[in-house]
């Protein structure tokens, strides 16, 4: 029997007073999660409760730029992606259909012998799309992922996922913290946010990172000046930013000035000249698709000797399917499938696929019971996956039961996202998870790579 509409949003507003007060007493606005970080250098609001100091001594550049260094890409599906329609439990199809009361997928293709199906849109794209990647052993799905006592607000949840902390305070992103420990002091391209603003996942306390849509828009430009005069102008800039100065402020300014030029210089060979795009992909991405375009840039830049280690991309689709889920989710997942399939083929064509692991995630799942608008409201126990030639393949976590729901009638959480983060830090990036995730050992580990 369908629930009344937008119960999820109502749940947010009635989230236990304790949870909400704890949240709101944090000083974090509800918009924190939708806000990009501040220009690339989000610093930590001083607070003794935070385990991270303000300044981390950054490691030397050489480690970060070693050829063959592994890359981790975060792909965010904004809005809360519905597990039940992404990987429909065809082994319990009857229960699934009952819960969804008419809007359930009618004949979803089966996903091998897993007992699960897959949304038809995820079979679209090169080589069978995401379904094809799964069948080729390059995808490990993680159903039931979330954190205990989920907060059903987009802003709060997204902030938790971005920082790797169920925290009340502003904090750098979890990948940003990794760079603070293991990144270089002078390569902003080590952390790439493919967007005009820095993704909060990559916000650091001290390590430089870069936000850009394309190599075309990172040069230091003065209107009307080009050619030799532009080179002379940039040389003057380099001279001015090389001055020896004292004090935190002057040093920060001159370092930022040097790095701004450095990003421009290092990406200049890859900017489009005379209609030639040096980063043109060797495979066909979906047309007019922002996600595809950003992923193609990631593949191209990872393949260059630029020292890219971490990257972050947001999908454009609408996953917050309170109404009209059948159409909206189909469209959104189609873009994801086509873009990710092209991305994987691109990496393989460029010969860098072995170095890259992709984590696809969303900030929560959705309610098992449908609502009256052919949609679902915010819930728990969502879907994430790892993708790559070294990704562990299969269904890596326990699919939540459709009958044993939690006390809010949501799917039970079967894996904490921090376990996934800790596993990726140790299993893929090869460093101690405790540096980034507090109490990392409490979450256990999952084999996410092979």
């Amino acid at each position, binding site marked *: 029997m369908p629930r009344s509409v937008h119960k999820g949003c109502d749940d947010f507003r009635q989230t236990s*007073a304790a949870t909400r*007060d704890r949240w*709101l*007493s*944090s*000083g*974090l*606005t*509800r*918009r*924190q999660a939708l*806000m990009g970080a*501040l*220009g*690339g*250098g*989000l610093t930590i*609001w001083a607070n003794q409760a935070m385990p991270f100091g303000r300044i981390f001594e950054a490691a030397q550049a050489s480690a970060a730029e070693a050829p063959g260094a592994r890359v981790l890409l975060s792909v965010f599906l904004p809005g809360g992606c519905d597990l039940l329609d992404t990987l429909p439990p065809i082994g319990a199809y009857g229960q699934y259909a009952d819960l969804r009361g008419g809007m359930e997928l009618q004949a979803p293709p089966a996903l091998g012998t897993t007992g699960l199906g897959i949304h038809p849109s995820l079979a679209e794209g090169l080589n069978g799309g995401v379904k094809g990647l799964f069948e080729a052993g390059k995808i490990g799905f993680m159903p039931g992922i979330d954190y205990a006592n989920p907060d059903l607000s987009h802003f709060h949840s997204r902030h938790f996922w971005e920082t790797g902390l169920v925290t009340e305070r*502003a904090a750098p992103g979890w990948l940003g913290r990794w760079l603070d420990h293991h990144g270089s002091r002078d390569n*902003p391209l080590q952390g790439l946010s493919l967007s*005009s*603003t*820095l993704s909060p996942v990559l916000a650091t306390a001290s390590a*430089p*990172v*870069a936000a850009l849509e394309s190599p075309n828009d*990172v040069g*230091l*430009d*003065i*209107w*009307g*000046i080009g050619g*030799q*005069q532009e080179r*002379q*102008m940039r040389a*003057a*800039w380099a*001279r*001015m*930013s090389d*001055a020896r100065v*004292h*004090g*935190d*402020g*002057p*040093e*920060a*300014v*001159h*370092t*930022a*000035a040097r*790095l*701004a030029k*450095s*990003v*421009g210089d290092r990406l200049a060979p890859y900017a489009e000249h005379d209609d030639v795009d040096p980063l043109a992909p060797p495979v066909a991405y979906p047309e007019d698709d922002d996600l595809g375009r950003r992923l193609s840039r990631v593949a191209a830049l990872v393949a260059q000797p630029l020292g890219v280690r971490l990257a972050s991309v947001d999908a454009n689709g609408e996953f917050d399917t309170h109404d009209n889920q059948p159409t909206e989710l189909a469209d959104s997942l189609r873009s994801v499938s086509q873009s990710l399939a092209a991305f994987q083929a691109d990496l393989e064509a460029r010969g860098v696929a072995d170095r890259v692991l992709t984590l696809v995630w969303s900030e929560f799942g959705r309610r098992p019971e449908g609502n009256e608008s052919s949609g679902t409201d915010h819930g728990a126990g969502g879907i994430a996956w790892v993708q790559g030639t070294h990704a562990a393949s299969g269904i890596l976590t326990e699919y939540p039961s459709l009958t044993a729901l939690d006390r809010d009638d949501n799917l039970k959480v079967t894996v904490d996202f921090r376990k996934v983060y800790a596993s990726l830090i140790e299993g893929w990036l090869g460093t101690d998870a405790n540096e980034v995730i507090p109490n990392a050992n409490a979450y256990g580990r999952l084999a996410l790579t092979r």
Partner: protein
Amino acid sequence: MSAVGVAEAAQAVVADEPVAEAARRRRRARRAARRRHGRRQAHRRARQPSAGSAGWTEAHVRRLFWRAGFGATPVEARRWAKRGKTATLDFVVNGPPGGAQLRGLEPRVDGRTLDPLNEWGDNVLWWLDRMVRTTYPLQEKMTLFWHDHFATSDQDTPMMLAQNRMLRRRALGSFRDLLGDVTRDPAMQLFLSLAGSTKDAPNENFARELMELFTLGTGYSERDVREAARALTGFIADWHDNGTVTIQYEADEHDDGVKTLLGRRGPFGVDDVLDLVVAHPKHAPFLVEKLWSFFVATPPSRETVRALVATYRANDLRIKPLVRAILEHPQLYRKLDAPDLVKCPVVYVAGALRTTGSHIVQGYPTWLLETMGQYPFYPPSVAGWDWGPAWMSSNSMRQRFTLGNYVVNYGRPRVRRGSAPATLTAQEAYELAWRAVAEPQVSPATRAALVHLAAHFFDDLDPDWRDKADWRGEALQATLRHLLLVCPDSQLH
């Protein structure tokens, strides 16, 4: 000279003639030396235009005007250097007699006047325009300080504009009055859930931030937060159709029991809580240090803090005397030749426009401020923005570089046709550009780099054609003006 003094002097003369004569000779010698010294000083002052009274130079004026406002034009720097430190401080701190005014014409953007209430982005342009045109910059600067200190975000525009006006009214007056108005401010009450906090369900958000962020920092316990929350109950929000809210106080919803708060006991209400927090010994040093760090890049010594705390308390916790004491402090004037405080994005943009005599004519400041990391009316959290070196990153620096394009092409420093022949020497080209962007303070290294640029800007041209290459001369001017506005030196003040 007092009667006693005359008697003493007379006695000295009578007592010992040879000693007196030697003393007179010494006095004559000293007077002569002073005259010679005075002549040397006069020469030195004459060589420095408008050096003003000793120890108060144009460099001092620029430092003060940047820290207390949005920079000084060359005319202002010269005028106030002559008037001396006290007169300048009086002017800066008190503002013009009759109160703040906005000089010049109201801005027109996209062919229309600003509608800060109804047009997205116009609220930011409206405030920026105030910073550019006000005759009382310190008032706008302090409004910005309080907006960050009592950070409120993400509320409907009518309420944020009303809060802004309140902060401006209270910016330099009594802190306790400001705190009272902030506590009752609708945007703040909604933001921190104080409206709707009732005796049956008291909300601790405001109580916690009141102590942690607004008044004390440390020195209170979780119990104090809970008890303060109880004492602050009773406000409810009364919604109107036009997006504004009136805050009502319902005695029925107020918990009028006895509370134990910061070591005192009583049936405290809202004003009692506010009285208690400002009376707490931690309050004065907390606010003093925060206000100091807004104006000065290096931390104050313990003695300085003690003295400023004493000033603040002696003046009944009024803000203006405290601000004045900071603005007079010698530490603010250290290293006049090497400014060390990073300009926040708002000061950088408003300062570039104000000092060059430019105006708001387009909407670009809105998205530029966002990408630089400081979008007014949207601080990232109740803790406000992170200041100082935190403003800087390769991304924000790229955005700051871009500002130059807009100011040089649409502002007063526009290069006029025919104004910059290619035959100027490198030195002349530099000076012309430097004057056109309000004579910014730059290091010798920066100056050398720009003169070098000017000297080689025509290298690829056939020398015979140089005198016909005015277009190149104008391009050089645009480049020099742009770089002077955005160079690393110009990011500091």
